[in-house]
């Protein structure tokens, strides 16, 4: 077997590649389910109903998708410009703690219409700040940001852990390390009563559209794509490489910071070190699954969230560990990488 590069990349192929990838991942996961001794089709059905079968299930899936959309966008924006931001997890935590701290210590008592935007902006700024450090190291000393952003995750989470066990510790929490809660007026409104689904979903969807527009239509977007595709040619064409990367980092870090804010302001109301079950890392998978397309990120995030929520439900009714969700999402990423390869290459006879 041998591969030849395709002269033309067909649009149809690019669009159906993720669908094929997801189908292949589900089929492979089916093998594991069968090995665990459970009926495969029933398991699929339980995952599906668990994720979308009732109003509660559907709102739960969407609630899970909100931070994934934001961290997915954060990764997609950065990766497009070849800025390898692996630090969305840390940026998410810093954003969350910034919102919680500001609401508890300063902005509490402000009306919603003022307080919510202030908290969101503060969270975005916190996320940005955390990503600008590794970017500065890269631009100034050529330090590989894959390593620095990844390691800063641990720094950020330990820093948050220190705060919620110290100055920001909630005195009403019976000694548990958790932050003081967000002021009631700082919480995002619920979209559907008696569910956890909150207005952060609308924010995430709007930002996906905005990011798409910025990337495809603006001078900045064109420059950041140019910088990512071919930095030498971009510099020759007068693209200010450093400035463009700083702007990209601000958007990417800001989005990750917002992911933390909406999770805390929409769902938990306080920060613990279990705020995120790896949303920052899953965002990378989501972005890759979407082939770095902002609108695709929304779909990929919903798929990923559905897998986690659905697998939870399935494992409750059948004797299959929830790890099957992790496995399926991981398999779908691997399948997607293969699918992306086949949009660019064909098997030669």
């Amino acid at each position, binding site marked *: 077997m041998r591969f030849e590069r395709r002269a033309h990349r067909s649009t149809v192929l690019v669009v159906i590649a993720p669908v094929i990838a997801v189908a292949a991942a589900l089929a492979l996961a089916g093998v594991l389910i069968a090995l665990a001794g459970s009926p495969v089709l029933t398991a699929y059905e339980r995952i599906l109903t668990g994720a979308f079968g009732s109003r509660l299930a559907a709102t739960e899936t969407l609630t899970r998708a909100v931070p994934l959309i934001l961290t997915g966008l954060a990764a997609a924006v950065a990766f497009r410009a070849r800025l390898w931001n692996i630090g969305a997890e840390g940026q998410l935590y810093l954003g969350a703690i910034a919102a919680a701290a500001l609401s508890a210590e300063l902005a509490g008592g402000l009306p919603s219409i003022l307080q919510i935007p202030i908290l969101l902006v503060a969270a975005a700024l916190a996320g940005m700040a955390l990503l600008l450090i590794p970017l500065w190291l890269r631009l100034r000393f050529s330090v590989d940001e894959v390593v620095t952003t990844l390691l800063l995750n641990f720094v950020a989470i330990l820093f948050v852990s220190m705060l919620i066990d110290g100055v920001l510790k909630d005195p009403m929490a019976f000694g548990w390390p958790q932050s003081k809660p967000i002021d009631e007026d700082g919480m995002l409104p619920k979209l559907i009563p008696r569910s956890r689904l909150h207005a952060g979903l609308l924010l995430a969807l709007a930002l996906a559209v905005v990011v798409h527009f910025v990337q495809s239509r603006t001078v900045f977007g064109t420059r950041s794509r140019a910088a990512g595709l071919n930095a030498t*040619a*971009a510099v*020759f*064409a007068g693209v200010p490489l450093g400035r463009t990367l700083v702007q990209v980092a601000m958007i990417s870090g800001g989005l990750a910071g917002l992911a933390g804010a909406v999770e805390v302001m929409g769902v938990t109301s306080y920060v613990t070190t279990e705020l995120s079950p790896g949303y920052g890392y899953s965002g990378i998978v989501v972005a890759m699954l979407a082939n770095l397309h902002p609108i695709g990120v929304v779909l990929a995030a919903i798929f990923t969230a559905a897998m986690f929520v659905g697998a939870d439900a399935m494992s409750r009714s059948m004797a299959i560990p929830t790890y099957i969700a992790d496995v399926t999402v991981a398999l779908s990423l691997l399948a997607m990488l293969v699918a992306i390869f086949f949009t660019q290459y064909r098997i030669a006879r």
Partner: protein
Amino acid sequence: MSETLLEIANVSKRFGATLANDDISLSLAKGEIVALLGENGAGKTTLMNILFGHYQPDSGHIRVMGKDLPPGRPLAAIRAGIGMVHQHFSLAPNLTVLENVMTGTESLWRPVSDAATGRRRLMELSRRFGLETDPDARLGDLSVGEQQRVEVLKSLYNHARVLILDEPTAVLTTIEAEHLFATLRDMARQGLSLIFISHKLDEVMATADRIVVLRGGRKVAERLRGGTTKAELAELMVGRAVHRPERKMSPPGEVVLEARGVTLRRGGVDRLKAVDFDLHAGEVLGIIGVAGNGQTSLSAVLSGTARRTTGELRLFGAAVGDLSVPEVVDAGIGRIPEDRNHEGVIGEMPLWENAVLERLSRFSRGGLVDRRAAIAFAQRIIDGFDVRGGTPLSRTRLLSGGNIQKLILGRNLIEHPRILIAAQPARGLDEGAVAAVHGRILAARNAGAAVLLISEDLDEVMALADRIQAIVGGRLSPPVARETTERGQLGLMMAGEWEGAHAV
């Protein structure tokens, strides 16, 4: 030379809608040098890839010493004694010469590599064929010409009896190329058979015993060297008579760009040393030199991608400070980069984005790109500069090198720049495209533009330039007038000897 060593019989290969090879037959005798001549896209490389087993032919077969070669098996080709020197070398830059040559020749199950024997054989081959090399040098530290020698040695080490060279001179300087061809002739005398792929008529006529011309995937002619002329080959290759444009004398205008003592220091080395030149409107000033003598730095300083360390630049009579790319573009300076694929265009972007990327501010309003105007601009370039193989919306990577160069020329010349910095504008292009690019450059000059032509190609400089300066080790010679200068004198100037040159 009667013993037929290699026979290619009726080979055809189709890629999608294009027939890359159409029923091609070719034979090669022991000790013979055959040139495979053709333009880009004529099917030369496809044919050689089939021969070497990278591709499987749709029909036809290959025989070595009368035995059929299994199709699509590079290892079988190597065993049969076929060696290939690729245009882009397949060597590891982090290994030494000896390690590169020995890679793949020993069983993986061997506990220790027998480097001593390998070294002995390598040195013996090196002596026998006059291919000097240092077996312990790290490959990445060698010049391109030296790396090519290692690639040839690697084939010989694998007991190659047939050596295929894909555009071997594309990356070499004139002097290195002459040395290579002398070596090839010597190898043929010692019984090796060679096929070299080329689109350069001079080297084909100087080296080959027999010349096979491909055009559009077909073999259109086969000539013995004694029985043909350059003119005939050019016509066979292109399919019609090609005339390179001719320069007519015209009086130069005022000085538009003046450099005095321009120096560029980078990485602790002076890449440019106190460079002086005057560039007049309506003239082509040729900067001739062997690669790596500061040409890249010179064009970078003038293109706005590098800041000079010291020295003065006067643009249209006024002293200017550090130039940024937008300032250069806005001042009406057109720029043709020396590496069109890596610096000139972004392959994955559509034509229209590449057409406007360096002047995005003009094709945008309030930070939004004006797509309609940009696409119309790209369409004007495509129409006006005969860019073939794509629409404004198709990805640039799909264009041939010649058409990419026409796109780059077009985006500069359509605005009627007052100055054009052209670095290696025709490097690697085929005859038809060279004529088109040269014609455009001369037309710009005739329209009053000042052209700084940076080139390694003596013929190109002699054909286009009004005045010529040589660049050696970052220094520029005084200018000489083209009309009163012989090629031999330029050769000396390129070697750094310009004491006797008459400045003009």
